[in-house]
């Protein structure tokens, strides 16, 4: 399943109230490393989307949420389970390294 976009309007419903783990990719258009991991997250979503939902949050458009979750560095990937952040990955990493970090959820 492809990744989808999340905004302030649907963040509660899509992320916090989800019954399965959700990975939020905090990213921005101008961030090179964010663009580099974009296709990798797309791949992971296609392969493991049934277990882990992957959504993208544009920090330029949704700065309030980014600030709420203390984002100071992007790309930042937060995994939410039952509305709580259970895992934070900061910085671009190759696919094998990301899969290893996400082992518990996929």
């Amino acid at each position, binding site marked *: 399943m492809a990744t989808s976009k999340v905004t302030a309007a649907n963040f509660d419903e899509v992320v916090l109230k989800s019954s399965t783990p959700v990975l939020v990719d905090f990213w921005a258009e101008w*961030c*090179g490393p964010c663009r580099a991991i974009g296709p*990798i997250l797309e791949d992971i979503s296609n392969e493991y989307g049934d277990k882990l939902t992957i959504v993208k949050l544009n920090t330029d458009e949704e700065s309030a949420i980014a600030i709420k979750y*203390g984002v*100071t560095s992007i790309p930042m990937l937060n995994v939410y389970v039952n509305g709580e952040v259970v895992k934070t990955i900061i910085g671009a990493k190759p696919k094998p390294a990301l899969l290893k970090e996400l082992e518990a959820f996929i």
Partner: protein
Amino acid sequence: MIRDLVIVGSGPAGYTAAIYASRAQLNPVQYEGSVTAGGALMTTTEVENFPGFVDGVMGPVLMEDMRKQAARFGTELITDDVVEIDLKGEIKTVKDGSGNVVQARAVILAMGSAYKKIGLANEDRLSGRGVSWCATCDGFFFRDQVIAVVGGGDSAVEEATFLTKFASKVVLIHRRDSLRASKIMADRALNHPKIEMLWNTEVVDILGAEKVSGLALKNTVTGELSERDFTGLFVAIGHIPRSELIIGQIDLDNEGYVKVEARSTRTNLPGVFACGDLVDHTYRQAITAAGSGCQAALDAEKFLSH
């Protein structure tokens, strides 16, 4: 299948080597790296000194265009990391993160360089929690805050100047009493109303429990220690060559840069050529990297024709 040429790395050096090699019908395969594709220019903003771009060009756009140009002549681009390189023997072997193996008669090494860390215990712990190596990625999150940049070269000055767009104040911390940066960039920083210079100063510790709250500083002349509040620290103290996969196989200098025969890109191993920041601790410019990438392709072409 044994190929003619494999290129490892994808900055201006790697892409230029690929453009020349593919135009010369060497059918190169190029490993771009999974998250490092495009190299150091991917985290820069405007490049003002690349010849031919009168009004400047964004670093990532320049790299995307070089990539397209390499693809246009038939370079096989692989967006994955190389995890093993074997340079022994006539046939060189490169293994990638997905387990694929490429064999070739010639290799061009263009792995570039990585950010140097200060080497403080708290640096990794607070990385992404106020400590950053990428002003263009993270500056946005320090709006109206007081942040520090450590370093004295072009990249430190560029980052400090860029960060003034967001920060209320940027303090540039340098262990000497003058900047190494080029004059035009140094002047821009020195005359900037939001930039304060902290000369002869070293960062000795990064403070903060959950995120950066300040820095412990030491005056390099008097030895005096002090603390100062900051919410962010941007590290721009230079680079280290990314030669980790080839240590012990090829001649490196004391700092880990690949040694090449003067006025060429030939290493001590036949069929192995090196270019870009991996060999260069002097110039380190996009244009010099591109130039050496061109040389590497021509050197490889000559080697393969014998």
